């Protein structure tokens, strides 16, 4: 196991570096859409970077991830090469899924990115199966399944949580509670005060924890505990990471349903800005060093776009290949 055990300034810097990488790809892609250079239904992870970065910091390359359409941050944090994502967004054959999946359906086995689903809630039952396989094989892997607050209102959530608890599966249910499900507020759709308290219904094998997902220390510690618990065979955790979606549901959604003051406050608390101060105050890196990291990621993104644009589209025959192994 190579992932760090205890929170430290080095860990903080690692987390922040991953968050910066995510933000650079996220804003880079949004820029391409805005300028008309890319046609894409994109669900930006803006504002949720710290959660994913902490997750990545606690996982091994061999661990599994199941995520959702809003999953760019999770995929990058799990170690996916940016150019594989960007090429997929461009519908090129060099993309993670040969251009056939698209932004809502990213898979990259090498990095453990097993499924990205566009159907709300559907990843959780699949995650229990990945966890079950690890249990059967004794391969010591942990599965993390990411989903939103809204997804906890779908039947699949209950079924997967219960199964994971009765079978004591090595799964972390990472709920990124960004307070909105498309245009509907948390309160208008969810009866419980927190998501974490829903864990109570699944007995002592399941632990429910709620943390500020935008605070690296709390998020890292909670994630570390949940992953260690899963790996030790002690059972699943429902980890609720509170955050805010610093964008519309999809890029281009003007989100008139979000009160202006709420949006303004959220922007004032942008974790990329807040955590930068923390990093600098900790003495682990200077402002100049952080700026250099940003410049480096921006350059890498540009290179990924060049790579994508210079890659061919898939052959038209790809429409019917991959439907069956042997037809």
């Amino acid at each position, binding site marked *: 196991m190579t992932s760090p055990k205890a929170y430290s300034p080095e860990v903080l810097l690692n987390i922040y570096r991953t968050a910066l990488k995510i933000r650079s790809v996220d804003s880079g892609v949004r820029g391409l859409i805005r300028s008309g250079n890319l*046609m894409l239904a994109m669900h930006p992870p803006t504002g949720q970077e710290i959660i994913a970065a902490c997750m990545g910091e606690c996982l091994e390359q061999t661990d599994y991830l199941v995520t959702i359409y809003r999953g760019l941050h999770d995929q990058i944090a799990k170690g996916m090469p940016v150019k594989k994502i960007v090429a997929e967004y461009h519908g090129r054959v060099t993309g993670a899924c040969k251009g*056939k999946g698209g932004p*809502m359906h990213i898979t990259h086995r090498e990095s453990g990115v097993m499924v990205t689903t*566009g159907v709300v*809630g559907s990843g959780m039952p699949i995650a229990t199966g990945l966890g079950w396989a690890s249990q059967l094989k004794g391969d010591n892997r942990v599965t993390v399944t990411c989903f939103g607050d809204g997804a906890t209102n779908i039947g699949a959530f209950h079924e997967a949580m219960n199964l994971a608890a009765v079978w004591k599966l090595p799964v972390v249910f990472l709920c990124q509670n960004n307070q909105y499900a498309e245009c509907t507020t948390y309160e208008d*759709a969810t009866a419980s005060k927190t998501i974490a308290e829903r864990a109570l219904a699944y007995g002592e094998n399941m632990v429910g924890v709620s943390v500020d997902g935008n605070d690296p220390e709390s998020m890292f510690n909670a994630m570390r505990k949940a992953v260690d618990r899963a790996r030790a065979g002690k059972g699943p955790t429902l980890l609720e990471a509170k955050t805010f979606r610093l964008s519309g549901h999809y890029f281009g959604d003007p989100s008139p349903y979000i009160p202006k003051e709420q949006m303004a406050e959220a922007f004032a608390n942008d974790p990329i800005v807040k955590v930068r101060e923390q990093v600098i105050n900790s003495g682990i890196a200077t402002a100049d060093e952080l700026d250099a990291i940003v410049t480096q990621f921006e350059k890498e993104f540009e290179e990924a776009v060049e790579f994508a644009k210079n890659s061919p589209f898939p052959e*038209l025959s790809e429409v019917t290949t991959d439907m069956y192994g042997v037809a």
Partner: protein
Amino acid sequence: MSDPKMITFTQAYTQALDEAMAADPTVVLLGEDIGDKEGGGVFKVTAGLTQKYGAERVRTTPISEQAIIGAAIGASLAGMRPVAEIMFMNFITVAMDQVVNHAAKLRFMSGGQTPVPITIRTRTGAGTGNGGQHSDMLEAWFAHVPGMKVVIPSSPADAVGLLRACIEDDDPCLFIEDGVTRIVKGEAPPANHKIPLGKAHVEREGSDVTVISYGRPMQDIRKIAAALAEEGISVEVIDLRTISPLDTDTIVNSVKKTGRAVVAHEAVRSFGVGAEVVARIQEFAFDSLKSPVLRVASKDATVPFARTLELEFLYKGSDIEAAIRKTLEEK
């Protein structure tokens, strides 16, 4: 005469819901994000209806498709006429049990005591770059469940009339809206326009070949039939409007007259509505056939993301034209 008023498909759906709610206080709407507070639905079909009819009758739900369809069924048993919105057709799969085992069957299994007068509105179609889980045309699945009615409009005026009919119908109706043509305009119908379910529409009369279709391909077929007429090829065009129950008579009578037929749909080719139409033609008009009945459809594959592949996946207008010409090769 002044120009006729033109409306989009989206405006047509809204008009039908508005008129139905005004006419019948038991008509209630439920679905994700449909209230005005949430912006009136992701596709704005229900925009303004909360203001007009109140939040009691226009209910935004959690993301809970099973509960949406189940609640619609329950409310219908107790005297309401719910119209449930399922944002994308693929998400109905999450609620298949409620649709297939309950909505479609409760009337029969109760010996007629509990009809289920619900309407499920949903939207789908490939061509929007949304990939494999937001684009499927699954109409054949539901048509294969006796008890369900399945409806797809091909013009804004038909959209108004058919949706009104679905809501007034005493059985569960699935009303399918095309995502690609939603801003296409057509002539607005008069107020309270209703079109009977279960009746196909002979949109254009012809004598050489019958083209049977519904939904989006109708846009292509109208143009193709007009162009072929210039060449002296006379195409009869039938818009099914209701997929199930299927209007066998209209199809069969037309093919008996023309002796040739092409069926076109956007859904994938195999095991689809096209196969059912072809089967009925050969059962009831075999002796009149001058050439094999041809199907035009999208490829048997998952809807791909890359634009180039998505276009390759989809049926094409040129395929329909080629099929028409092919049926005419045999004299």
